[in-house]
């Protein structure tokens, strides 16, 4: 099971990073969201995997590690705040600059390359 989850974390990271490297703001936001999933799972998994062991006292003998859970819980909420901030920044940038490229301007060589494709 651990190898499967590690594989998922790695794959999510790779997908997130790939989207992060795109040139337009929206895919970057999506990529960051994806990366946030990967990071949350990564942090969560550092408390090791436990089945049927929610950290509620008196329900089980084998508790899952509650500390990473507490950290990830706030990380999820803050991750949402950051995603929101970023996407609003993207909207504002598009409104002010007239395009949605991450550099704020369309690269000339890339737009000409687009013609040739």
């Amino acid at each position, binding site marked *: 099971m651990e190898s499967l989850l590690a594989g998922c974390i790695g794959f*999510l990271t790779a997908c997130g*990073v790939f989207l992060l*490297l795109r040139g337009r*703001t*929206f895919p970057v936001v999506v990529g960051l*969201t994806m990366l946030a*999933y990967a990071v949350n799972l990564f942090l969560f998994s550092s408390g090791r995997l436990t089945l049927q062991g929610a950290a509620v006292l008196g329900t089980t003998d084998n508790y899952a590690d509650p500390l990473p*859970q507490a950290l990830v*819980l706030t990380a999820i909420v803050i991750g949402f705040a950051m995603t929101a901030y970023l996407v609003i920044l993207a909207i504002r940038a598009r409104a002010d600059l007239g395009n949605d490229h991450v550099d704020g301007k369309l690269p000339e060589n890339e737009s000409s*390359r687009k013609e040739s494709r």
Partner: protein
Amino acid sequence: MTLLWILLLPLLGTLVPVLTAHWRRSACAMVTAIPPAFALMILLYHGSAVFAGESLRYTLGWIPLLGMDISIRLDGLAFLFSLLILGIGLLIILYARYYLSEQDSMPRFYAYLMLFMTAMMGIVLSNNVLQLWLFWELTSISSFLLISYWWHKSEARRGARMALAVTGAGGLCLLAALLLLGQITGSYDLDVILASGAVIQQHAWYPLVLVLFLLGCFTKSAQFPFHFWLPNAMAAPTPVSAYLHSATMVKAGIFLLARFYPAMAGTDLWFLLVSITGLTTLLVGAYLALFKHDLKGLLAYSTISHLGLITLLFGMGTDLAAVAGVFHIINHATFKASLFMAAGIIDHESGSRDMRKLNGLWHFMPITATLAMVAAAAMAGVPLLNGFLSKEMFFAETLHQHLLGSLSWIIPVLATVAAIFSVAYSMRFIHDVFFNGKPKGLTKTPHEPPRYMRMPVEVLVVLCILVGVAPGYIVGDLLHAASFAVLGTEVPAYSLAIWHGLNLPLLMSVVALAGGALIYINRKHLFDFQNTLPGVDAINTFELAMKVLTKRCQQFYGWLDNGSLQRYLVFLLMAIVVLAGMPLLQLDTLFGGRPELPVDAVNATGAAMLLISAFATVVFHRQRVVALLMISVVGLMVSIAFTRFSAPDLALTQLSVEVVTIILLMLALFFLPHKTPKQSSPTRVIRDISLASMVGVVIGSISYAIMTRPFNTISDYFLANAKTGGGGTNVVNVILVDFRGFDTFGEIAVLGIASLGIFKLLTRIPVFKPSSDGEGRPWALERHPVLLATVSQGLLPLALMVSVFIFFRGHNLPGGGFIAGLVTAVALILQYIAHGVEWVKSRMNIEYQRVVAVGLMIALLTGAASWLFNKPFLTSWFDYFDIPLLGEIELASAIAFDAGVYVTVVGSTLLILASLGKMTTSHRPVHTESI
């Protein structure tokens, strides 16, 4: 404590001329002289102790953990230099009063001068190398200000820039050397460093440290090949040249050589670098000085040459040579400062410094001429003057060294050659200026200077003679104390007598005097020869080099920082791969021994869905709506994973955040293009895929390595104390609101800040309303579907009840303020979606930024309330109450804190989404001063 005042008084003195700027010039000069005069008195008061061989210390703790202390050490060497700095400084203050004209700002000059004096005192008194370096840099800066004092002159500006660039670069080298020394010895304390000479010299870094250290010293002391800045610094007013460029600042490098002598000297490398540099500088300076037509230019090259002489003496590595070096420091400071001041008088009273114009001044200013001639004779090494004594010692030392093996005889020969030129340029200074016909083309008739302008010169010249005639009485103690401080051991026996009998050094002196006279008489041939050589314009060459360097740096910077975010990201991610991947390479096996859980069908299906949807997100990332749908599946799968692996709180949070995030991104897409154009070239895509894969592989591997390793968690403490200490059975929630409550407080603060930032970003945004979607289809006319409107209205009370339920059970069962807040927010947002802003606003007119503030206040006050009970911030309290009808219930202060979290989350989420949602309506946020 009085030691500190020696340093503080000049620093305070920096303010004195500024405060008395409107006073008469003489008064201003007089009060400026008071602080250094007091400092000098304190210094002399400590003289007897220093002469007795003590070194006085004073330490004021500052940042002891970093080895940064304000630490002062007054030993013989520091005493000698302090005496020169304060003594000559006082003479310079007097001299400058008459030198500066009515147009020159005297307070500015004095303030710079005092700043420089402070810096120099700081260097010589520091007992902490970092503190020393700080003052070292301060001398560079204050000398820059002093050289550029006449900033309207281009040569002053260029000269100052050059001096700053050269000495500043050297200063950085010195810093590196001092930091390395600190690493080697484990302390920045000078006492410790000086006592660990053996450790330093055996350390593998010694060559590097030495080279960096010497670069610092040589640039400051104008040693070849860094000598070029000194002649160009002569654009400074003459008092500056007399003070900085003969007596003090250029000696700072020499001072460091002397100061670190016990720690650094004695190796072959030291000898090779220091003595060869010194010898070269000695010869080059002496030779070039002869050809300068500018009085100050001649003196500048002569200074370079004498500095080379002292460097050579320290490079020889014998104790007697070091004593001779210290002695020559004293002598050179006295005769060269007086010569510079004499040159300044000549310039001031005749309007020129050009020796081709200045002739026969003896008739116009006999007293000044006599003084200058005595000082120049001391420079040439004429017997009965101080220069003669140290030069004799120098000659004797060159004869006693065996540094070059069988070629060692070269050094005394070259020393004699340099001395010959030294005599020749001294003779030129005397003969060309004061005799040799009549003045040519001077703009004014030369005359004697004001009485007190000449006085500093007189004082110094008298010293030259006194030291020359009775060295033992005048400087015997001082020299002994300073030499003792340099060597760190007992000073070898030496004799300060004038007459040592007929010996080889005396012969060398005679040869130098005769040869110098011969060369001076036949100088015409030498000048003709020199004129055939191609001249090098130091300042233009230097500036050209600086221009090229600047351009290269700009090119490099332009390449590195080209404004492309993607490029920076690539660099960053590569660094991650390298930094995180390296340790993995050293790991034998990823698997850490902890047995894996078995994979069942449910998990496998979930993982497959996760992978497929993540892949689909990437594949369809250009069709943004599709990508959004796909990533929402990823989020769903992640929350299911949390459920599966015993984290119900996380699953609930993830689920509700997921809803909010997708609504937010949907809304955002209204304002952004719906499709991403194809822009990346195939090579770019391949590069990105490989980079992303590498990052993924590294992260996945690390994750696997962590998960399969057994570990000891600190959470046992939380599990054991959640009920007894925090009063709840849901440990995750107790950690959030109790054990780590302060962290949570910080996190809701961040959430609040982000939402306020968004609110602000959306005000005054240029409005644009796309009338159709990305493919040109107009938006649906039916804005609020009836079905949704009906259902949502019924759903609202239900959802609110659920959130209340989740909130209250949170302390004992999965739930809590975060989740309850998100559920409430989603229920309210649904009303916006179903009915529109207008409808909601008419029923619930709340400014969400206030809600955020209220939530944060609740959390803050709950935390602060524990102060009332003399407990630290956010100490929790709980108890059980037996209430009729309801039975026993628990009340905990943590619930109030959780309420703060709840309100903040509701307020922030709604502020974010409602602000964005209102963009298309007339209620969009506008800039108002009230918020």
